[in-house]
């Protein structure tokens, strides 16, 4: 297992470096510098300002400094918030986004998994069709559409739930219910489809036939023998699920006014705050790559066949 972790790290680190480099060059290919919008500065001051941010150096050297700073956890100064650096902005928003994302993925895995198993055990019966129809509809309900709709229906019209606003670092279930549900909805649908297909396949396997022949009770066959195998595709879907939830959080945090990273990212993107955008992209890429790595290792633990020396 250690070998596998090391092997994945050997792939993950260059990938992340490639992402950072590509994003860096992309950012620096943009026309105009970050200080163009300031009123005309005397040339000496502008030169000192550029030197202060190392913007007068060749791009390769700037990348070197950026990586060096990054290694120390410094993502550079924000270009919209004069008094904050990017790391500060991200760490302020992180708790909100973290709670939101983790709740959505947990909900998706639990509820989607449950629905999928239920459908699989009642294959081609009404329960199965009902779940699959729901899943089909669920895939078509992106946060982008359902966020504003839920907010309108439950928040503004029915006044059942608060639809906007959450103080930083204060989490209340009523405030988070709608955002989490909106984020989780398409993921629930995808997980339930995956789980249904893999459970059906697992229940048909020779191992299950053997378990039946041994006379094991049905619940034990399902829980001990079928589900661990059937859960594998869902485990490997966790990486893409995280990517989906993170992208969705950009929309959801904006719609519901949550003080997370996603909303800052959008404000930054619109204000062309390159350093902030870069910082979030690097953080989220690293998270997803890390998640994929974790999934691979977990896969090896769950499925002995996937263990390679």
């Amino acid at each position, binding site marked *: 297992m250690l070998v596998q972790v090391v092997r994945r790290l050997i*792939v*993950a680190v260059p*990938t992340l470096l*490639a*992402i950072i480099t*590509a*994003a860096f060059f*992309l*950012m620096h*290919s*943009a*026309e105009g510098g970050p200080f163009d919008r300031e009123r005309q500065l005397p040339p000496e001051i502008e030169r000192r300002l550029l030197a202060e941010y190392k913007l007068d150096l060749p791009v390769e050297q700037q990348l070197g400094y950026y990586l060096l700073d990054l290694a120390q956890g410094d993502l550079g100064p924000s270009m919209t918030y004069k008094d904050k650096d990017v790391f500060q902005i991200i760490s302020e928003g992180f708790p909100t986004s973290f709670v939101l994302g983790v709740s959505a993925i947990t909900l998706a895995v639990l509820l989607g998994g449950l629905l999928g198993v239920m459908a699989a055990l009642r294959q081609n019966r009404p329960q199965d069709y009902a779940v699959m129809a729901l899943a*089909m*509809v669920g*895939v*078509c*309900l*992106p946060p*982008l*559409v359902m*966020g*504003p*709709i839920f*907010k*309108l229906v439950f928040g*503004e*019209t029915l006044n059942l739930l608060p639809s906007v606003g959450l103080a930083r670092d204060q989490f209340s279930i009523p405030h988070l219910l709608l955002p989490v549900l909106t984020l989780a909805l398409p993921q629930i649908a995808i997980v339930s489809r995956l789980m249904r297909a893999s459970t059906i396949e697992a229940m048909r396997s020779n191992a299950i036939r053997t378990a039946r022949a041994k006379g094991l009770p049905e619940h034990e066959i399902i829980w001990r023998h079928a589900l661990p195998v059937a859960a594998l595709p869902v485990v490997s879907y966790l990486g893409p699920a995280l*990517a989906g939830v*993170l*992208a969705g959080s*950009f*929309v959801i945090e*904006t*719609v519901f006014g949550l003080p997370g990273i996603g909303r800052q990212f*959008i404000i930054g*993107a*619109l204000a*062309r705050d*390159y350093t902030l*955008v*870069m910082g*979030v*992209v690097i953080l*989220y*890429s690293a998270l*997803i*790559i890390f998640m*994929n790595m974790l999934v691979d290792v977990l896969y090896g633990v769950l499925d002995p066949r996937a263990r390679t020396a």
Partner: protein
Amino acid sequence: MTDTILPDAGPKDAEPAPAPAKGRSLWDDARRRLKRNPAAMISLYIVGVLVFLAAFGPMLWVHPVDEIFREQVGIAPTTTDMHWLGTDTEGRDLMARILFGLRISLLVGVAATAVALTIGVVWGAVAGFFGGVVDTVMMRVVDVLYAIPFIFFVIVLMTVVRTEDPISNLLLIFMAIGAVEWLTMARIVRGQTIALRRREFVEAARASGAGPFAIVFRHIVPNVLGPVLVFASLNIPVIILAESFLSFLGLGVQEPLTSLGSLISDGAANMVDAPWLLIAPAVTMLVTLMALNFLGDGLRDALDPKDR
């Protein structure tokens, strides 16, 4: 012709031999299966209507998309003056805006899918056909790119590359989204190509002197079109969603162009005073996504019945 080969075919002066049973091609079978799937057929008609509306709606509808009604700003849906879906906060007819937004959304979906299709098919077919080092290197590239969360890259790209011209902005969206969606396509095509390249008809083409590129593009690519078509049809809603996502965030299509995503975004900003501005484009979006998804699913079942 058969009777010269088979000696015991009927005598020549007898009734003409019954025409050989009409062969049912893959596509005939697929069409039959698709017709038996009511959800897919209904979706097919809905998609047809949507495409018609997107293509001709903006021309046929009474109000032009950019006409501003200064006396009727932000009015609710009404039959007076044919503002069936009301007007937006700037006094533009919402129906006209939605028809136009639908056109842009579908256009992005189809164009970006075409970009992804072209890159993916060429890449996958070449890698699969030549195999060996070529295959290893090309697929390694795909593997590495796969690990990258690409929606972020599209966001960075759209943030950094700013064009004032809405049309070139639209082209940029096609390119950006299409260029990141080709990876799965390349994998599918490669797998199919590997399965096909040892088949007799490829051997026959080679024996008759066809060069490798002729074999790939004249013989292999046409035979992998089934799965590619299924993937492409399921990819269109994904791309429509990606474009809406960008537009919702303010990074997508720019005024005076509009798309379903930017209409939903506008609607979300005004939902308390003018809920119709949100509901109408959101419903249009949902209907579009569902019809396309059900149709793609139906196509998959029709072309690949194993997968049911």
